[in-house]
C-alpha cells in the first residue's frame, strides 16, 4: 500500500470517536467499516483478540471487566486523583496504580495504560481511513478537551504513536469546532463553545485574533450528557406505567430494554415533532396472565419540563467560565453548539436566550470536532493554502445543428477548466463546409440563445451526408477563455475561434436567462421535437429517394409507385411549416413501413456506387450524428 501523504483529523471522544480528512479542498467524514460516521470509544479484550467500536459494544455485557469504555477519563491522570476516583465508580473494569502512580487499566492481571487502550481506538480510525483513501496513512491531528493538561496531552500523543501515527498536532476540541465553522477567518472575536455530548458537558471561552486561538477559560460537568436525558425519559415511562397498571417495569430486563430503545427514539423524534407516540404492546403480563400494553404519548412540552433541570445544570458552569474569562455574555461574539444532545430544540433555545444570540449549528454536531481536526490537518499538510475556489461556467455552451436546434456541449455549472468534444457530420451530400455557431444559453432553439461567435470549416471532401467526421471541441481554460475547434478527422484540417469572457456574466444576467428558459421550457421542448421530427422526416425521405433510384427497377411497379408517393408526401410535409411533430412522426413511420420492400431487395444485392444527389437542407449546418459506431462523444482531457 503506498502512502497517501494525507493527514487525518481524529476526534478521540469519551463516548464516541470520529475521523475526517480534507478532499478536494473540503473536509469529509470517513465512514467506518460498519458504515457509520462515528463509532463507540470501546475496546474489548477477547482472549488474543481485541475488538474496537461497534463490535466491542455489542458484546460488552459478556465481559464487563474486559470491556473498556470512556478510557479518556483516565488519560494522563494519577490513579489517586479525585477525577479518577470519581470516574472509577462509573466503569465496570478495574483501574489500578501503574508506573509513576498513573492510572492504568487492569484486565486479567495484565496492565494497560490508557494510551495503549486509546491506541486501539486510533488504530481503528487509521484503518478505516486507509480503507477509504486507498493508501497508507501515517500522520494525524488529534483533538483533546481544552482543559487537558500537559500530561494528558502527552499521553494522547503517545497513544497516536503506539497506533502508528505521527501526531502532527494536538488541537483543542473547541478550537476544532471553531475551525469547522470558519471562525478563524473572522479576524478577532470571542467565542463560546457549548459541547453537550453523550456523557460529558464542556463549555469553553476562546479568543481568536489574527488566526490564532487562545483558550480563555474552560468549565463543565464531567458527568452530564445525553445518557442522563435518556434516563429521565425512561424513569418517566416506568413511572407512568406504574401509575396506570400498578406494575414496576424496572424489574423486568426484557421490558426495560424495550423502554430504553423507545425512550431514545422518542427523544430523537421530539427534536422535530411536537409529540411522540410510545407504543410497546405486550410489554408484560398482568396478575391474571393477561397481556399488558404500554402506550403513552410524550409531548415536547412534557419532555422539556422533565429535562429542564438537567439543562439548567449546564448553565452553572457556563456562568463560571464567563467569570473566569473575565467576559460578560454580551462580549461573546459567536456561540457554537457541539455534541448530539444540542440537537434538542430546548437546549438550543436555552443557549440562545442565555447568550442573546443565535448559535452556529449548521455542521453535524457529532462530526464538527473531527471536521475541524481535518481542516487543521489540511493546513499543516498543505492541502489547503488558500482554498482554491474554482469557477464554473454559468450558462450552457453549445452549437447550432440541423433544424435550428441548440446542441449542448458544456452544461452550465460545469467546473472549469474543462474540455468537451463531440463528433458531428454534414447534413447534405457533398457538403464541403460546415458553419459552427457557438451558442450560450439555456433555450432549446439556437435562435433563442446568445451567439458568441461563428466560423466556417471548409475543404471537406465531397461525400454522402453523414459520412464526414467533424470533431468539435469546446475548451475553457481557468480564465474562462473559450476555444472552439472544428476538425475534419479525415483531412486533419481544422479551424478555431477564441471567445473571451464566456464566464463573465453578471448574476442578474444569468438569472434572467435561466428564468427565461424555465418560462419557455415546454414551448422550447415542443419546438425542438418539431425540428427533430422534421429533420427525421427529411432524412428518411431523402434516403428512400436515393434507394428508389438505385433499386427502384428491381421492385414491383405497383410497390414502387406506392413508395414514391409516400416519399413525395413526406417531403412535402417536411417542408410544410404547419406540420406538427406528431403528423411528421406518423408520416415518417408509415413511409418507412411501406418501404420494407426496398430493404428486401437491397439485401439481395450489393450497392452499385454513390449517387450524386443535390439536396438543399440546412446545407451548411452540421448534423448531429447519432450513429453509434461512428460518432463518439468523447471527453478530451489533455
Amino acid at each position: 500500500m503506498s502512502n497517501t501523504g494525507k493527514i487525518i483529523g481524529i476526534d478521540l471522544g469519551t463516548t464516541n470517536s470520529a475521523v475526517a480528512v480534507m478532499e478536494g479542498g473540503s473536509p469529509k467524514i470517513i465512514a467506518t467499516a460498519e458504515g457509520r460516521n462515528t463509532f463507540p470509544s470501546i475496546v474489548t479484550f477477547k482472549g488474543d483478540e481485541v475488538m474496537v467500536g461497534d463490535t466491542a459494544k455489542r458484546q460488552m455485557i459478556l465481559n464487563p471487566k474486559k470491556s473498556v469504555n470512556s478510557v479518556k477519563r483516565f488519560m494522563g491522570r494519577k490513579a489517586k486523583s479525585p477525577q479518577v476516583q470519581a470516574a472509577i465508580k462509573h466503569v465496570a473494569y478495574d483501574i489500578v496504580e501503574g508506573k509513576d502512580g498513573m492510572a492504568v487499566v487492569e484486565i486479567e492481571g495484565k496492565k494497560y495504560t490508557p494510551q495503549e487502550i486509546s491506541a486501539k481506538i486510533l488504530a481503528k480510525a487509521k484503518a478505516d481511513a486507509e480503507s477509504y483513501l486507498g493508501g497508507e496513512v501515517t500522520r494525524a491531528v488529534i483533538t483533546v478537551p481544552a482543559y487537558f493538561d500537559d500530561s494528558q496531552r502527552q499521553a494522547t500523543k503517545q497513544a497516536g504513536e503506539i497506533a502508528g501515527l505521527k501526531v502532527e498536532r494536538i488541537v483543542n476540541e473547541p478550537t476544532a469546532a471553531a475551525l469547522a465553522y470558519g471562525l478563524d477567518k473572522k479576524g478577532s472575536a470571542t467565542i463560546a463553545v457549548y459541547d453537550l455530548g453523550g456523557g460529558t458537558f464542556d463549555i469553553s471561552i476562546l479568543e481568536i485574533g489574527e488566526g490564532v486561538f487562545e483558550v480563555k477559560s474552560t468549565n463543565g460537568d464531567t458527568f452530564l450528557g445525553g445518557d442522563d436525558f435518556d434516563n429521565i425519559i425512561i424513569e418517566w415511562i416506568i413511572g407512568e406505567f406504574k401509575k396506570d397498571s400498578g406494575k414496576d417495569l424496572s424489574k423486568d430486563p426484557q421490558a426495560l430494554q424495550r423502554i430504553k430503545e423507545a425512550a431514545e427514539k422518542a427523544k430523537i423524534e421530539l427534536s422535530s415533532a411536537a409529540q411522540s407516540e410510545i407504543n410497546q404492546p405486550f410489554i408484560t403480563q398482568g396478575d391474571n396472565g393477561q397481556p399488558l400494553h404500554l402506550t403513552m404519548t410524550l409531548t415536547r412540552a412534557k419532555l422539556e419540563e422533565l429535562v429542564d433541570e438537567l439543562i439548567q445544570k449546564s448553565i452553572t458552569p457556563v456562568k463560571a467560565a464567563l467569570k473566569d474569562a473575565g467576559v460578560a455574555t454580551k462580549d461573546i461574539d459567536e456561540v457554537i453548539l457541539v455534541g448530539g444532545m444540542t440537537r434538542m430544540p430546548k437546549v438550543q433555545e436555552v443557549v440562545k436566550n442565555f447568550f442573546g444570540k443565535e448559535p452556529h449549528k449548521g455542521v453535524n454536531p457529532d462530526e464538527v470536532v473531527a471536521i475541524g481536526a481535518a481542516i487543521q490537518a489540511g493546513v499543516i499538510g498543505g492541502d489547503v493554502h488558500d482554498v482554491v475556489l474554482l469557477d464554473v461556467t454559468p450558462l450552457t455552451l453549445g452549437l447550432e445543428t440541423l433544424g435550428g436546434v441548440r446542441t449542448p456541449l458544456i452544461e452550465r455549472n460545469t467546473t472549469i477548466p474543462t474540455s468537451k468534444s463531440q463528433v458531428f457530420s454534414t447534413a447534405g451530400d457533398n457538403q464541403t463546409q460546415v458553419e459552427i455557431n457557438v451558442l450560450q444559453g439555456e433555450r432549446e432553439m439556437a435562435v433563442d440563445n446568445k451567439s458568441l461567435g461563428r466560423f466556417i470549416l471548409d475543404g471537406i471532401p465531397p461525400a454522402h451526408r453523414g459520412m464526414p467526421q467533424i470533431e468539435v471541441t469546446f475548451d475553457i481554460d481557468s480564465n474562462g477563455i473559450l476555444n472552439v475547434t472544428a476538425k475534419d478527422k479525415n483531412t486533419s484540417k481544422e479551424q478555431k475561434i477564441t471567445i473571451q469572457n464566456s464566464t463573465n456574466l453578471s448574476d442578474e444576467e444569468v438569472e434572467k436567462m435561466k428564468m427565461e428558459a424555465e418560462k419557455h421550457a415546454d414551448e422550447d421542448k415542443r419546438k425542438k421535437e418539431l425540428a427533430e421530427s422534421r429533420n427525421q422526416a427529411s432524412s428518411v425521405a431523402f434516403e428512400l429517394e436515393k434507394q428508389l433510384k438505385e433499386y427502384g427497377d428491381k421492385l414491383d411497379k405497383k410497390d414502387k409507385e406506392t413508395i414514391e408517393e409516400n416519399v413525395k408526401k413526406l417531403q412535402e410535409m417536411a417542408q410544410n411549416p404547419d406540420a406538427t411533430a406528431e403528423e411528421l412522426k406518423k408520416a415518417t413511420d408509415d413511409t418507412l413501413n411501406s418501404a420494407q420492400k426496398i430493404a428486401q431487395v437491397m439485401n439481395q444485392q450489393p450497392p452499385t456506387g454513390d449517387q450524386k444527389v443535390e439536396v438543399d437542407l440546412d446545407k451548411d449546418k452540421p448534423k448531429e450524428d447519432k450513429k453509434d459506431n461512428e460518432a463518439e462523444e468523447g471527453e478530451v482531457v489533455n
Partner: protein
Amino acid sequence: MHKSHDDKKPQSSGPDLASQLKSAQETILRAQADYQNLLRRTQEDRIKTAKLANLEIVLSLLEPLDNLELAAKQIKDPGLDMVVIQFNNLLSQFGVEKIKAEGEKFDVNTMEVVENLDQSKPDIELVVKQVRKSGYLLNGQVIRHAKVVVS
C-alpha cells in the same frame, strides 16, 4: 535560430521557479488522486445504494412486525399467524432475511448480547438462549443486529 533543448527547464531564478513548479506538480497529482478516489467511491456508493435501496422503509416496517410477532406469540389465532407469515414473505421478496439466532452460537457480527445468564462459561461456548429482538439482513448485509440472551 535554434530551439532550446529542454523546454521545461525554468529560465530565470532557479530555486524559486523550481520549487513553484514542484509544488504545482504536487497539487496536480493530488487533485488527480482526489478525483480518482472520488470516481472509485462513487462507483462503490452506487453499488451500496442499489443493495440497500428501501433500507429506511424496511427498517421502519420491522417495528410493527416485531409487535405483530409478539402478539402472535401471546394470542393463539390462525388468522393472526397468517398475517405474520404474509408480512415475512413480503419482506423476503425484497431481500430481507431474518438472522438465525436461537440455538446458534453467539456471533458478534450479527448479534448483540443484552443478557448473559452464565457468566462462568467462556465466550466461545455461549449459545443463544432467547432472542429478545430479531435481527435482519437486507441483501446479505446486517441492517439490524439481533438482540439476544446467551448462556
